[in-house]
């Protein structure tokens, strides 16, 4: 079965720096990969989706890359702000009906 590894449980960076989060998967290449943000006690909030035939996707200060050879996605937040502090989840399509398989997440803390 598909497994997802988000290598860092926690990442601490200084405000203004670029945060880079990693997501690796083990088996089949998914049709798409998504990144969600989760704040404590809240549900995941969709951020970005990248398809298997796309190398890179951007949205404002966010950038996602997808390398199907390495079976890896990188998620970047440029010019990070304390308000970016949250847990970021990587998710893949897990089946034909669209259910998602999530990674455990990386907790990002941006210090002022």
């Amino acid at each position, binding site marked *: 079965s598909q497994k997802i590894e988000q290598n860092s449980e926690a990442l601490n960076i200084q405000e203004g720096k670029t945060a880079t989060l990693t997501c690796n998967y083990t088996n089949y290449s998914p049709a798409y990969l998504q990144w969600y943000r989760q704040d404590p006690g809240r549900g995941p*909030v969709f951020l970005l989706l990248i398809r298997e035939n796309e190398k890179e996707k951007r949205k404002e200060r966010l950038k996602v890359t997808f390398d199907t050879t390495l079976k890896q996605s990188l998620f970047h937040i440029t010019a990070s702000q304390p308000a970016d502090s949250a847990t970021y989840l990587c998710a893949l399509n897990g089946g034909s009906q669209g259910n*998602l398989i999530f990674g455990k997440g990386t907790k990002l803390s941006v210090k002022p």
Partner: protein
Amino acid sequence: EPEVTQTPSHQVTQMGQEVILRCVPISNHLYFYWYRQILGQKVEFLVSFYNNEISEKSEIFDDQFSVERPDGSNFTLKIRSTKLEDSAMYFCASTREPGEETQYFGPGTRLLVL
């Protein structure tokens, strides 16, 4: 902006009791999901639901779980006889149509089984 809502936000119950968790998906959405997240663990898929029937379910979704769309707006998850290990956050999610990749999650119900 439309959003998924869930009630109650918190539920405390005794082991062996039945609980019903309620969700109101976004109004024009047709595909519904339940996920759970045990404290400190990853979000796990339970079940998907479309056209008044289960589309897919995980091995977690055993006979003690059931889902229902009792009317045009609500989507419920019932746990018949709760166990201590059912304590978790339960999230409802919805999409406009099958195969739409982005899922919209509700705020969750925190269930504590004593």
